[in-house]
Each structure stands twice: as structure tokens, then as C-alpha cells.
């Protein structure tokens, strides 16, 4: 039977699945069969394409046509028009914001054009549940080369030369970590993949595991060979059921092919992977807490040194790396250190996967070379801010990251430049904020997360984050005093210096950077009791402009009708008034007034 001529690549990452991708798939199967096209058109489910806000997504290969925002209702028309009659359907294609013409080809869409895929090289083009497809794209060749042609020392040298730095956040030179683990005494060693991904809004690791679990397995196996480990663990957060499922299936398939287990590729190298599920604690993404968790203990971090490479899991030398770090390894082995180090900046080689979220048009996952500017990511790839609103800040690196303002938009993204700006690379979260974001409220929001996730072991973090949060909450409620600002700065620096682990050491970053770059907003909250972005409800005053109400609205009474507290008085046809004491600042009157008569200050 002749093989299919067209493959429909249906994105089946968690985002698209929860938006109905499987319903679209069922509808496609039904309609394809109806037109007798089953032998011509294949339906393939793949991992996440990255353009998550536009899901469900189907990419038609070999044409490279990109369909988005699909639902089962449009499928009959799509199948008949494109797959039977050959006419691509324009109204299902992507139209860039502010433009009118659709962009049919995926490779022409701004979101995809500037990306460079290394860790995500297989996304959307393979079925992650079919190991042969991974092999078909040179999968496991790197492992074969490593175990049959290279010594562990040569592998380590190559990784050192490539300049790869950890992608979990700290950016430690990966090859150096491997070298230290190898050097440590003892026959029993471990390698661990940190797939806990606790940062809210981060889904880079989830996407890699869902779309291409084998790259993680292959990377981990190569690492095991290099450091001398016989067993490995993938610590994956329990909140990723689909990723967990695909990973476990991939491990089974790799075992069946002898790519895991005894005597890999007929050599005397043997390696097994165990999967350990997390139990809902952010702090377990910290390596020593993670180790404690695997050991069955309470997920509390401990003092370092000793570092895990000297004494880690069960006190044995352990090399822990992030999912994205492991995913880069097969390519580095295959294409060489010079290739990898030719991408990126002087200090930060290769690419980085970022999750672009917040107030941005093209929400999703992108992989870009280090050194690209924030401006390029936000405007060229991200498509800018929706509704034509003004950019205000971008928070990089998760809840422990810092907020970077407009003036620094041309900052090339790499480890050092972000640190200098007071932020960090972190796991790669990029939360974009526009003029409607209150920077004090944002600092309070992120601190409420880190405070609740604090394990409680050390005073500075346990009590310090709570103190910071209390002050911020007070300020947002209009009860701030000028001393509060200096107290915030002082305590934030103490928490940073004195905390035992990365959680406490970085939790104050949002506070410190917002005070540094947006001090005026803090001062407005404290001194004038005003919120410039009009977010902090306690500081808002709702009033009705009497002229507008009468002249434009003719005293329509809509606001009074909708007010849940009966706080608006006025007769029909006459100017209405809000009773300030009764007003709970819910904003409903502002929302329902069709004549812009309700003022918010």
C-alpha cells in the first residue's frame, strides 16, 4: 500500500489537548475516512509546537501550512477544501496582530522565524510515542558514538569546550560539573534530571518531555557514561501527567531496543532510569531538597558545600542537571563543541527556551540564540503588546526573577547581562507587563508565592519573606509609611544574604528590582495613597463625571442598577453620584457605563 502523501501534525501538548485537540483529531479521522482519503492523509499527534495561545494547531506537511484556533466544527470544511480539493483554507490561518493577510506557512510566521531550535528540534515533527521517529531524525546516534568511540574523559572535554551552562537557572558550566562528578571517589554514582519545573508560568521542561522525551533519555544516558553512573533518576513534578506518561512510555521503548539496561550497544556500559514523581513542593526544585525528596525525606534543602557532585543522593557523587540542559547534549555530541559555541554570546553559548507569557500577543514557547535582545523577543517574536498598550516591564526568571524596564529592552539576553540588571535567566520565564500592571502589586504577588513555598528551615527566609509580604500588602492597602520603603530594602537584602538556599536567596529580587526601577510607584502608593496603574483597589476612587453622565448618558441609571452595594444615587435623567463610604471599588459601574462617565483614579 502506498504511503501517505500528507501528514497532519496535530499538536497534542497539554495546552492544545485541554483546548480540544483530541476532538479535532477525531473529527479529522472521521472526515478523512468519509472522503476515502485514509491512505493518502496520515494523522499524527505530536508534542507542543510552542505557539500555545493559538491552539489547537495542525501543521500540514509537506506543505508547511499552519492552521490554528481549530475546533471540530471547522473540520468538515477544512478536509473537503484542503485535503480533497487542494485549496488551503485562509480563514483558519494565522493573521499577525494589526494586519489583515493570513500567513499560510509556518516558517514565515514571525513567531517561528527568529527561533533556532536545538533542545526543541523535534517539536511538532515527530510523534513522541514512536521511538523510530526519534531515531529517524538521528536519535541515539550521539549515544552510539559516545559508548563505542569515545572515552568518558573525551565526552567531558567536549561538553566543557562547548560552553554549555546549566539551563535550570544558576548557569553553572555543565562540563565542569560532570568533571567534578567523575573525579569524585567511589564506584556508585548517580545522574539526575530535574524536571520539577516549579516556576509558575514556566512550561519549557514540560514541553520538552511531552514532545521529545527521548532527547532527555539520550542526554541522561550520555551523562551517566561520562561521570560513571549506573543509575539515573528523573524527578518530575506530579502535576505533569501527560509528560509523565510520555516519559514512561519512552523509557519502556528505549529498554526494548536495548538503549537502556545491560550492555548498551553491545558494550559493557549499562544504565537504568527510574522515574520519581514530585509531591507539590516548589522547594523540591532546589537540588538538595530534590535529593532529600528522592531519599524519602522531607523536602528541605541543606547546606552546600558539600555539593551533590561530591556527596549527593545517598551521600554518593551525583550530577544533577535540568531537562533542557540534558536535551542539548545529543546535538552537542553530534555536531561538536565548535558548532555549539558559535551560537550565542561570549559568556553564554547556545540557545535558551523561554516561555513568553503575560500581556503579549503571541503567547507560547520559544527557543532563541543567547544574545538576542528582549526587544526582539517581545516585538518580533511576541508580536508586541495586545490592544496597542504600552510595554512596562518584563520579569525574567520566574517568581525569583527581577523586573526589567523599558530602558533596558535592548539588553542582549545572557546570564551575565541579566544578573547585572538585577534579574536572572532562571528557568526561562518571560512575563510581559503593560501599563495596566501595578509594579508594587506584582512584587506582592510573586512574594506571596515564594513566601508560601518557603520550607521554613531558615529564619531569614521563613520570617523574612513573610515580613516583606506583610509590608507590601500594607502598602497596597493604602497603609504604607515612608519607613516601609527603607525597611523593605533592608530586609530584602538580609533575606538575600542570609538564606540557606536559592529560594530565599532570590525571593527578594522582584521587590528589589521594582524598587530600583519603579520607585515612583512605591512613593505614589505610600505618600499619595494612589495606584498609578489603577490596580490596587483600596487606593482607587470611583467618581461619576456629572456632565458626562447627563449630556452623554442622560442619567441612564445603569450604574445604580448594577451596583452590588446600592452605593449610587441619582434620578433617571439626572447626574448620578457614588457614595464613597459605601463603595467597595468592585468596578462594576465602570464596566457597565456605556458613556465613559465613571472616572477611576
Amino acid at each position, binding site marked *: 500500500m502506498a*504511503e501517505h502523501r500528507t501528514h497532519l501534525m496535530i499538536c497534542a501538548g497539554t495546552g492544545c489537548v485541554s483546548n480540544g485537540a483530541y476532538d479535532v483529531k477525531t473529527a479529522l479521522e472521521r472526515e478523512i475516512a468519509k472522503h476515502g482519503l485514509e491512505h493518502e492523509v496520515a494523522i499524527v499527534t505530536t508534542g507542543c509546537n510552542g505557539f500555545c495561545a493559538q491552539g489547537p494547531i495542525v501543521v500540514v506537511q509537506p506543505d508547511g501550512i499552519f492552521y490554528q484556533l481549530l475546533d471540530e466544527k471547522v473540520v468538515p470544511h477544512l478536509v473537503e477544501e484542503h485535503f480533497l480539493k*487542494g*485549496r488551503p483554507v485562509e480563514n483558519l490561518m494565522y493573521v499577525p496582530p494589526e494586519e489583515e493577510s493570513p500567513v499560510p506557512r509556518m516558517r514565515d510566521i514571525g513567531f517561528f522565524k527568529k527561533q533556532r531550535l536545538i533542545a526543541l528540534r523535534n517539536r511538532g515533527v515527530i510523534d513522541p510515542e514512536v521511538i523510530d521517529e526519534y*531515531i*529517524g531524525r*538521528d536519535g541515539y546516534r550521539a549515544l552510539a558514538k559516545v559508548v563505542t568511540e569515545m572515552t568518558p574523559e573525551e565526552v567531558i572535554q567536549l561538553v566543557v569546550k562547548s560552553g554549555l551552562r546549566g539551563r535550570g537557572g544558576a548557569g553553572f558550566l555543565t562540563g565542569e560539573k560532570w568533571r567534578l562528578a567523575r573525579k569524585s571517589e567511589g564506584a556508585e554514582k548517580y545522574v539526575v534530571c530535574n524536571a520539577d519545573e516549579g516556576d509558575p508560568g514556566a512550561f519549557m521542561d514540560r514541553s520538552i518531555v511531552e514532545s521529545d522525551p527521548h532527547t532527555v533519555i539520550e542526554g541522561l544516558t550520555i551523562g551517566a557514561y561520562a561521570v560513571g553512573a549506573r543509575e539515573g533518576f528523573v524527578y518530575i513534578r506530579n502535576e505533569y501527567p501527560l509528560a509523565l506518561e510520555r516519559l514512561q512510555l519512552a523509557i519502556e521503548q528505549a529498554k526494548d531496543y*536495548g538503549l537502556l539496561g545491560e550492555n548498551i550497544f553491545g558494550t559493557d556500559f549499562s544504565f537504568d532510569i527510574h522515574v520519581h514523581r514530585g509531591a507539590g513542593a516548589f522547594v523540591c526544585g532546589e537540588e538538595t531538597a530534590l535529593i532529600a525528596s528522592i531519599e524519602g525525606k522531607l523536602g528541605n534543602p541543606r547546606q552546600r558545600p558539600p555539593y551533590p557532585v561530591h556527596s549527593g543522593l545517598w551521600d554518593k557523587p551525583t550530577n544533577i542537571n535540568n531537562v533542557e540542559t540534558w536535551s542539548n547534549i545529543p546535538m552537542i555530541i553530534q555536531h561538536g563543541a565548535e558548532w555549539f559555541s558559535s551560537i550565542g554570546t561570549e559568556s553564554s553559548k547556545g540557545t535558551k527556551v523561554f516561555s513568553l507569557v503575560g500581556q503579549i500577543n503571541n503567547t507560547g514557547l520559544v527557543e532563541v540564540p543567547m544574545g538576542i535582545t528582549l526587544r526582539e523577543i517581545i516585538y518580533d517574536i511576541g508580536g508586541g503588546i495586545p490592544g496597542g498598550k504600552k510595554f512596562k516591564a518584563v520579569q525574567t526568571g520566574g517568581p525569583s526573577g527581577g523586573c526589567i524596564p523599558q530602558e533596558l529592552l535592548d539588553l542582549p539576553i545572557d546570564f551575565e547581562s541579566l544578573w547585572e540588571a538585577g534579574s536572572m535567566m532562571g528557568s526561562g520565564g518571560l512575563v510581559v507587563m503593560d501599563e495596566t500592571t501595578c509594579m508594587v502589586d506584582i512584587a506582592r504577588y510573586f512574594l506571596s508565592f515564594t513566601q508560601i513555598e518557603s520550607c521554613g528551615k531558615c529564619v531569614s527566609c521563613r520570617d523574612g519573606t513573610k515580613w516583606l509580604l506583610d509590608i507590601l500588602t500594607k502598602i497596597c492597602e493604602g497603609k504604607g509609611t515612608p519607613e516601609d520603603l527603607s525597611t523593605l530594602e533592608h530586609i530584602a537584602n538580609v533575606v538575600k544574604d542570609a538564606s540557606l538556599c536559592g529560594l530565599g536567596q532570590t525571593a527578594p529580587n522582584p521587590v528589589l528590582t521594582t524598587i530600583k526601577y519603579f520607585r515612583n510607584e512605591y512613593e505614589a502608593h505610600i505618600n499619595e495613597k494612589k495606584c498609578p496603574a489603577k490596580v490596587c483597589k483600596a487606593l482607587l476612587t470611583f467618581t461619576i463625571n456629572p456632565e458626562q453622565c447627563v449630556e452623554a448618558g442622560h442619567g441612564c441609571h445603569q450604574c445604580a442598577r448594577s451596583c452590588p452595594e446600592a452605593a449610587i444615587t441619582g434620578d433617571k435623567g439626572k447626574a448620578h453620584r457614588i457614595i464613597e463610604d459605601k463603595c467597595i471599588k468592585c468596578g462594576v459601574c465602570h464596566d457597565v457605563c456605556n458613556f465613559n462617565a465613571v472616572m477611576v483614579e
Partner: protein
Amino acid sequence: MGKLKVSDLEKIKERVRRTTTLRDGQGNARVIVHMGTCGIAAGARDVISALMDEVEKKGLTDVILTTAGCAGLCSREPMATVERKGQPPVKYVDLNDEKIRRILNEHVVGGTIVEEFALAIGSEQMH
């Protein structure tokens, strides 16, 4: 398949090469069969089936088969456009099962345009 040897990796890669090429959308040659209502009425579905069958028979791994809408010259349907890497596209007309198989073997694989079935070399200007 049992435990893999290093040489098995290449074998598997070959086995799925057609899939890989198709998904990357990069072959050495592309054959576009024009469909549309007129094309289908004239027999374009037989043409694409024949093409798929011939590609399978000859074990070709780097030829992309795809469809497009009506090319505009409805009276000469079924039509197909052959694009070989680095060469201008050639439009073929009045096709059937037998003719398209010849075109695949002689032009797509062999490199010689089958002049008796060809309408024109080159494409219309887009804008």
C-alpha cells in the same frame, strides 16, 4: 526488533526516511497535482493515487507529493506541476495514470522533461 546494534540505527532511519523528508517539507523534487472541483471531475484523484503507488513501487524517499487547487487551465485538467531542485517548474496537462508514472520516472527521477505531455516551462508571475 530486539536489542539494537549501532548499524540498526541507520536501518531504522532509512525505514522512516520518507516520513522524515515529508515532515521537513524538503525533498529533492516535488510533484503538485492540481485538484479543485474541475481537477477532481477530470480524474485528478486517479493521478495522485497512481503517483503514490509509483513512488512506493520505486522506493523513492525524497520526492514530495502534494496537492493544490485549480491551476486555472480547467480545459486541460488533470494537471500537475513538477519542481526539481534548482530547476524551473514544468506544467503537465491532460494527465492520466499511465502518463504520470512516465513523468515520475523520466522527469522527476531521470531528469528529462517529457515534452509530449508538457504545457510550459516556468510559472506565472506572482504580483
